[in-house]
């Protein structure tokens, strides 16, 4: 058994930023465990640019953003166990992992969960039809193309207009494939406007809203898909069915926080975010276990992942130092028009605290009101709010001190 102050599971953008923040908060014995041979996580295959504008003030590609944090980790001499998979975490913070030299056991004073997320698969969508090859999750195709240098197909349909789907539409076009369509079952795209413009419009790729893939065809390799419009209940309208020949179907239909270790440790989960319930330090309901990044909630920008990871890293360091005993926490809950809020528990005796949230549907101008009972703690006006973009509201420390009940965030259209 090895003993460490902080063990971080996952060496992607969240794990690395958490490690750096923990180190800089004075805890030097920090270990990162990552299952890949190199840190960087999913950023290593996200070769497009657009990362870092908010956090680092410059526009980087995914690998460059990862490299920035990798250098910060190396500079501090933080230990990385690469090519090592964590098998379990216990509530008393024993981490069991495996690699080619054997089974490792590490006793930590604090654990930070930063395992990221996975893509929703075809099975979870229940798309009828056959089961040929050529149906890929967008991220799987991205890895085969960008990291291993193989073409996955020539004629492509993409289901889902989340950012990965849009990015892959451009990527496949650049490599000479014909992208026939991007279908989105919702009446609006979940991707960033920037990506719709630069990944679809630039390449003349049509985006069909309220449209889904109704059937998959082909016995060996995919030969085509039937697409169809859907009604308000997201049911296929049979009369709109249309066949598109293609050899490749990419699925970009949502990301799911990968919380098997979290659940195994008995940590309380939020059914909406798919991640753990956490306080403002990103500590879960198991004392000393923290979570950050896409394992906690799926983010739209990696910059925000880094921000969240810094909160967790600092929180874990303070926990190891024994700080925070006098805290008093209340629940934060989602009200009208708000899908979820995070953190779900807030310290009323701490400093200024940011509440992150997502709205339930696209809105124009809205006003957010944060209340405890009848007392208004904060308000914020946004000119536009969509489910695809996370919102942030800052609660001031002096206002928080007046709170003695649960906090609720409501949205009001203006």
């Amino acid at each position, binding site marked *: 058994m090895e003993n460490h102050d902080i063990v971080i599971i996952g060496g992607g953008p969240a794990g690395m930023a958490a490690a750096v923040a923990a180190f800089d908060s004075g805890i030097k014995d920090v270990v990162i465990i990552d299952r890949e041979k190199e840190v960087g996580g999913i950023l290593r295959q996200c*070769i497009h640019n657009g990362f870092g504008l908010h956090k680092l003030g410059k526009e980087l590609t995914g*690998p*460059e953003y990862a490299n920035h944090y990798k250098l910060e980790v190396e500079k501090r001499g933080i230990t990385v166990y690469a090519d090592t998979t964590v098998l379990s975490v216990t509530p008393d913070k024993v981490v069991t992992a495996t690699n080619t030299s054997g089974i490792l056991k590490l006793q930590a004073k604090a654990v930070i969960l930063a395992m990221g997320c996975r893509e929703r698969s075809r099975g979870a969508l229940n798309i009828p039809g056959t089961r040929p090859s050529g149906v890929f999750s967008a991220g799987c195709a991205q890895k085969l193309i960008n990291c291993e*240098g193989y073409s996955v197909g020539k004629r492509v349909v993409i289901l889902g207009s989340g950012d990965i789907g849009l990015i892959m539409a451009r990527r496949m076009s650049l*490599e000479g494939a014909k992208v026939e369509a991007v279908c989105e079952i919702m009446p609006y795209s979940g991707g960033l406007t920037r990506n719709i413009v630069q990944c679809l419009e*630039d390449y003349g790729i049509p985006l069909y809203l309220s449209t889904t893939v109704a059937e998959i065809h082909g016995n060996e390799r995919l030969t085509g898909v039937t697409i169809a419009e859907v009604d308000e209940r997201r049911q296929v309208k049979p009369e709109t069915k249309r066949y598109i020949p293609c050899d490749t179907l990419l699925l970009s239909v949502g990301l799911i926080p990968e919380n098997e270790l979290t659940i195994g440790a008995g940590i309380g989960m939020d059914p909406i975010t798919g991640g753990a319930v956490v306080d403002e330090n990103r500590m879960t309901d198991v004392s000393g276990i923290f979570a950050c990044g896409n394992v906690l909630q799926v983010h739209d920008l990696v910059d925000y992942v880094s921000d969240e990871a810094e909160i967790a890293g600092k929180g874990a360091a303070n926990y190891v130092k024994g700080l925070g005993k006098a805290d008093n926490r209340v629940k934060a809950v989602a009200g009208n028009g708000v899908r979820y809020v995070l953190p779900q528990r807030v310290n009323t005796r701490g400093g200024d605290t940011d509440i992150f949230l997502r709205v339930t549907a696209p809105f124009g101008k809205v006003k957010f009101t944060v209340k405890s009972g009848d007392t208004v703690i904060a308000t914020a006006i946004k000119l536009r709010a969509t489910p695809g973009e996370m919102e942030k509201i800052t609660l001031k420390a002096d206002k928080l001190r007046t709170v003695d009940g649960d906090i609720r965030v409501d949205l009001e259209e203006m």
Partner: protein
Amino acid sequence: MERNLTCILCPRGCTLNVTVDGDNVFVTGNSCPRGRYYGEEEVIAPKRTVTSIVRVSNREDTMVSVKTETPVAKSDIFTVMEAIRKASVTAPVKVGDVILTDVCGSNIIATKNID
């Protein structure tokens, strides 16, 4: 000439109306000054950063990711891709290494380390 664009500089996504009249460009619909510059450039000389991959010849199934050091004209994207596709490098490669010089006015540089 008149075009409608979606501004991509922030999540607000303003719909810009850009009119070109000789040397004069008029942008309406923007909520901030940055939107005006975006509208002007997007109509007169749109530019894009191109990102792709180059094969590492002395490593098995390994690609190094690359990008144009500065944005190139949107109309040159496929010319740039053609040049990138023909290139190959030998490891080690460092982030920032120049892989190709002056392709449509920009260097192609590595964005990943390959040891």
